């Protein structure tokens, strides 16, 4: 269906090609997953398929790509609209109209289909993607998962043979991601559609893939093959594969189901270890936070640390927005020095609102927010940053200078600290960053660390992060985990609002689950995440009912036993 013949893409002004020597074929009816570190050329790869690269973006493309026999060198993206459907990273950016039904029809109107055909296809697509109840809804009023499905539907109505998606589930909560992936697998199986998608969250998608394309970046050759073949060599792998590698299972498991069938002996082995653990920790002196916590690697002490003095609290916090949506209803939360708290819950459950109340960006309707003895809403920003710092969902919002060095200087001046403070912090977080780089040219992970360094410049004891792993690959995520642990050891209290169950399992000691503006569950992370399948990390699902949450924990336990 799609043939790449020795394809190399070099953007104007770039010293290295963004994509080099791709030579492969994607057959019809496959779900092809594209993986790679940030900046390895995933988006470029996807955009070559419908000719957006180079027709739209500029740059030089050598080699040849044919889609269903059409050469992208001679066909513009619009001439391929009936063959390839492309869904971008943020669906809202790609919407042209404002109502679901019109959006589905837009592509067909451009192609010039007869009204009767359009009518039929819109109805079919509404049914296929379960959007029937939303047909008259304004696009902006939909949830993230619904928007993503409308975006998929809007390109499906043109009856393309290939569907290309760039990170379709990164911004979604686990349930919404399930919705979207279920729709995609259904399209592959029912319609024989060829789907090419890029995704960082391998734990969500690798089990559905027929083929994985690994772009290692740095001019290394592209690896393509079945998921099992690629996972064996790839530096990026979901926890379930890591667990399989650790336990030496062959073939490697791709899904929780695969792993669970292999995991019997491992569970037995761990059960004997776990019984010992539990006896020790359930003695009267054990703190509740450590009661169910199994063995840890020596450096993994954050979860066991007993929390220090109370740093910040919200009491009976109520926040109401115009129209009464996305509010908080009587939320209680206390954060202590030295602990890492995970804040989970579906899209619109109030996670961001709660974080924003702690930095005074949201006016409480009633209730009290207290950060280190001050009320955030009534405190001057220049004083507040010494008490609390928030890394927002889009870290780039905080950046506007032309270079990293300039950003650091501004941060020093804003925080009124000696020049060089921010730069030293940044050097500690990511050594060897080029200080002349423009923030826009950095990878998501680098931008996140830069913003974190800027926030930390004022030395706030409380650090809040809103959805920090969006767009981060596993390497960047591992680095973030290390940084967060170091900060907690320094006595910072950290609150993470995230959909990423693996991150929560790895770093947090306590988890708070919000639902519709209320605290639904709160307690030690192992207790909370084990109680609900939606929030359980993969390792917990494989080893349930044993309370191990991450691969390093299992590795440490096995090591301690041997």
């Amino acid at each position, binding site marked *: 269906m799609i043939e790449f013949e020795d394809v190399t893409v070099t953007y104007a002004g770039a010293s290295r090609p963004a994509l080099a020597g791709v030579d492969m074929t994607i057959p019809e009816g496959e779900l092809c997953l594209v993986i790679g570190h940030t900046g390895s050329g995933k988006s470029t790869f996807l955009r070559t398929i419908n000719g*957006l690269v180079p027709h*739209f973006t500029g740059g030089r493309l050598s080699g040849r790509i044919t889609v269903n026999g059409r050469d992208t060198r001679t066909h*513009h993206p*619009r001439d391929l*609209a*009936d063959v*390839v*459907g*492309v869904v*971008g990273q943020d669906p809202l*950016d*790609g*919407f*042209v109209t*404002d*109502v679901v039904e*019109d959006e589905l*029809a837009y*592509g*067909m*109107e*451009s*192609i*010039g289909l007869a*009204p009767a055909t*359009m009518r039929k296809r*819109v109805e079919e697509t509404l049914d*296929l*993607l*379960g959007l029937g*109840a939303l047909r*008259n*809804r304004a696009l902006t*009023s939909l*949830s993230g998962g*619904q928007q993503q*499905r409308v975006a998929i539907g*809007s390109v499906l109505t*043109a009856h393309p043979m290939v569907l290309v998606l760039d990170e379709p589930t990164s911004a979604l909560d686990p349930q919404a991601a*399930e*919705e979207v992936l*279920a*729709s995609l697998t*259904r399209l592959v199986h029912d319609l024989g559609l060829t789907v090419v998608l890029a995704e960082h969250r391998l734990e969500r998608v690798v089990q559905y893939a027929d083929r994985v394309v690994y772009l290692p970046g740095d001019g290394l050759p592209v690896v393509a093959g079945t998921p099992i073949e690629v996972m064996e060599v790839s530096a990026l792998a979901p926890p379930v594969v890591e667990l399989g590698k650790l336990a030496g299972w062959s073939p490697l498991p791709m899904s929780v189901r695969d792993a669970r069938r292999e995991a019997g002996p491992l569970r037995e082995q761990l059960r004997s270890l776990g019984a010992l653990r539990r006896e020790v920790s359930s003695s009267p002196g054990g703190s509740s936070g450590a009661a169910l916590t199994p063995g840890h690697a020596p450096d993994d002490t954050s979860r066991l640390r007993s929390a220090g003095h109370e740093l910040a609290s919200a009491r009976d916090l109520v926040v109401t927005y115009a129209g009464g949506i996305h509010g908080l209803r009587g939320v209680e939360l206390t954060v202590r020095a030295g602990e890492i708290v995970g804040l989970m819950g579906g899209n619109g459950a109030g996670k961001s609102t709660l974080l*924003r109340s702690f*930095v005074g*960006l949201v006016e409480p309707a009633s209730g009290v927010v207290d950060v280190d003895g001050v009320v955030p809403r009534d405190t*001057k*920003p*220049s004083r507040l*940053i010494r008490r609390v*710092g928030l890394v*927002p969902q889009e870290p780039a*919002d*905080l950046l*506007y200078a032309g270079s990293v060095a300039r950003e650091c200087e*501004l941060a020093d001046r*804003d*925080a009124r600290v000696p020049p060089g403070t921010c730069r030293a912090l940044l050097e500690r977080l990511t050594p060897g960053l080029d200080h002349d780089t423009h923030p826009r040219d950095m990878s998501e992970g680098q931008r996140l660390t830069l913003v974190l360094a*800027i926030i930390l410049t004022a030395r706030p004891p409380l650090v809040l992060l809103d959805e920090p792993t969006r767009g981060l690959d596993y390497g960047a995520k591992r680095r973030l985990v290390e940084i967060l642990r170091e900060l907690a050891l320094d006595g910072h209290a950290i609150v993470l609002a995230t959909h990423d169950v693996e991150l929560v399992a790895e770093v947090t000691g306590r988890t708070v689950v919000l639902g519709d503006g209320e605290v639904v569950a709160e307690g030690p992370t192992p207790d909370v995440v084990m109680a609900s399948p939606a929030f359980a990390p993969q390792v917990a699902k494989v080893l349930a009912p044993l309370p191990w949450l991450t691969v390093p924990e299992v590795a440490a336990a096995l090591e301690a036993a041997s």
Partner: protein
Amino acid sequence: MRPVDLPSYSRNLHPGAWWLWAIGLAAAASRTTNPAILLIILGVTGLVVAARRSDAPWANAYAAFLKLALVVIAIRVVLQSLLSSQSQGVEVLFTLPEIPLPDAAAGIKLGGMVTAEAVLRAFYEGLQLATILCCVGAANALASARRLLRSVPGALYELGVATVVALTFAPQLVTDAARVRAAHRLRGRDDRGLRSLARTVMPVLEGALDRSVELAASMDSRGYGRTTDAGRVSRLTTGLLTFGGLFGVCVGMFGLLDGSSPPMLGLPSLLAGVALSSCGIAVGGRRTRRTRYRPDPWALPEWMVSGCGFAAAAAMFATAAVDPAALHLPGPLAVPEVPWIAVGGVLIAALPARLAPSPPSGSLHRAVSSPARSSFEASLAADQRRETA
């Protein structure tokens, strides 16, 4: 009779009908400063919006326009009180401290005595402008400008898309600006006003630019522009004809709404403009092969709604010809009289609250049925059945 002809058949009314109705009411309001009539017009717009608006986000436009209208009235009244002079009336309400001005500003007075006549006159004039604003707000709430653009003819399609994109970005810019301002707070900047504005502009524009590029990529990949293949000459003629036509329409509208302009400026240039742009649209329409999904029908309710708006305007123009004194108070303190023809016309314009079909309801209830979930639920139900059996 087709179902679309029945007012009881629930559907979205053609946006053009609502705009014609609103223009009719606005034209009526533009001809009078009689507060009684203006208040009735205001009430009519509010009534119809309350009865026939949908639950889409833009349906809240009326409230925004109403607030703007109140601000307009307040500004007029406050300015008039400050600049009031004795020449406007004798009925002194209260006296403000007078601020002495240099000789260069002779004839202008700041503060001093405020007369009831001056304040009332300002109030009535503000009320007229506010009423016209509310008519526009009603049209926006009942049929968003974007839905109106969906009905533009094929020749104006590109123009329509450009406008839609612009309309999308205006609210987005506001959101972006709020986000960037929040970011300033997070970085610990206290400054407000111009300095912070200057710092906000760059990131906001950058974000808007990124999004436009993303939107353009999306439109390109979805086949935008592949059906228009026109020669330069045809493109130029279409452009000139439609542009000239639209200019004529604008001038004509201005002439009609502004009572003091010469009669030649009104209806004749409006008609000429409509004719010109029709030609342009006909010429341009031939070159596009774009099709349209479910165009809004123009049926009996559309005729009735636009007719009601026309009736209000006609009644007002008739009163202006027969009894012009009734439309403007002899003095601000006079008790307003109620000219029955004009009021009757305006009341006819309230009929769409019943005559227009109600918009499809239930579009806001949050029924989320994903294939995954529904099949899961189905299997659950099957399990339960098995258990009970």
